């Protein structure tokens, strides 16, 4: 009794955070232009392929800047804090995918992590895969 067909997952890219990097990458400005272009082309191809397989929901990139905000109390402006140059965990962007299984989500993240870096070799980037919580429970009890 399989209960549903597809499930959504977030593949999260981090500027910083997560396990220790496998490949010690120089910052992007140190890459050769064609290395950078190959990297970006890989990302575009990845997104296009997901669209073609009917698995893409959304993909976005975030700038590293930004700040923390919280309620400041009755009649007061919101309180802001940051930006923090040294924040341990910094989200860079995401893909949202709609796939048949957890295994498929992990497989896709693994493929995305093979994006080429300097010298054209895979960067082995750590990506975080998170299941979405469903809006509604199954219609049967």
């Amino acid at each position, binding site marked *: *009794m*399989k*209960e*549903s*067909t*597809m499930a*959504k997952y977030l593949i999260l890219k981090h500027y910083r955070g997560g396990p220790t990097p496998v490949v010690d990458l120089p910052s992007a400005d140190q890459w050769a232009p064609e290395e950078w272009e190959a990297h970006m082309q890989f990302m575009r191809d990845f997104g296009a392929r997901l*669209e*073609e*397989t*009917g*698995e*893409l*929901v*959304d993909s976005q990139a975030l700038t590293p800047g930004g700040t923390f905000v919280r309620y400041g109390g009755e009649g007061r402006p919101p309180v802001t804090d940051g930006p923090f140059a040294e924040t341990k965990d910094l989200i860079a962007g995401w893909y949202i995918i*709609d796939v*048949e299984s957890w295994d498929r989500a992990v497989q896709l993240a693994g493929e995305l992590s093979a994006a080429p870096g300097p010298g054209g070799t895979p960067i082995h980037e750590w990506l975080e895969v998170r*299941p979405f*919580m*469903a*809006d*509604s*429970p*199954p*219609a*049967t*009890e």
Partner: protein
Amino acid sequence: VNEPLPPDLVPAVIGVLVRRGADFASAEDAVQDALVEVLRVWPDDPPRDPKGWLVTVAWRKFLDAARADTSRRRRELRVEDEPVPGAVEEVDGTLQLYFLCAHPSLSPASSVALTLRAVGGLTTRQIARAYLVPEATMAQRISRAKRTVSGVRFDQSGDVATVVRVLYLVFNEGYSGDVDLAAEAIRLTRQLAAEISHEEVSGLLALMLLHHARRPARTGPDGRLVPLAEQDRSRWDTRLIAEGVDVLQAALARDRLGEFQAQAAIAALHADARTVEETDWVQIVEWYDELVRLTDSPVARLNRAVAVGEADGPRAGLAALEELDPDLPRHTAAAAYLHERDGDPVIAARLYAEAARSAPSLPERDHLTRQAARLNPQLRI
């Protein structure tokens, strides 16, 4: 209005086009194009024969597309260029269309999408909204599915079991966005039951009706989940329940039990109880035994353990639960419930909180969190 709405006509009209020589994918496109014309023309000028009208317009759309296609690349057409005049053929391809859309070469998600479009007559946009994905993504899923079955012969008969499973998946998706998929699944299963007499099609229809009948009572006004035991049974739809029971009894009388009949029987026993105390748990456990025998499903075993807890007491339920894999979805929630029934609020509160952390949906997480919150103050006294 006595005339059936266009979505009910969609599979029949696709069937007619295919029998006239169109390939399935083009026929399906042509009917979708014709539905756009329906919206444009019918409000001011409703046809006397909607099906005939739809066939004529869809056939014209098909020929237009085929001509445009041939002018681009030479393509073998199995059709004559002239529309066939006169009445629509009586032969109906609706059942074949169900089989094709649930073809074993398709993934469950592809089958679901194709069934909703080709059999259900929904637009790609409606299906995309129902499954909360972009329209482009759903369009890709549907066109891939159509490519996958392009080589399948349309007049081949298929396996009813795969069709029933696809419709069950649609039903279980519930309702989000602007399409009520549960109601849509019921409509398609009714239509299938009218095409073919099969005990599991009836079993599934009964199961859907019996669950749908209780839907108004399953959520509170704030959207919170109301467990079966606490539901206001006066809000159950007695007409749907009566229909579900009738359909189920007719199916069971054929003496070919299947998993959907067994599930429907369990739903019927719940629906039959005027109060939760009147529930016939002993019979429910017996039906779960049948269901486990038929499916060997871990979900069925889990539900059986909870039913055993009601029939033979929480200790028996916990013992049944102990034999199952603790990583099963909702295993912890079931254990929490049975421990509370067993008079152990300390363990129950801890397990409810643990279950809430791994709940697969928001309503379930909220429900489990409330259960833990309900017990915790009592523990501090």
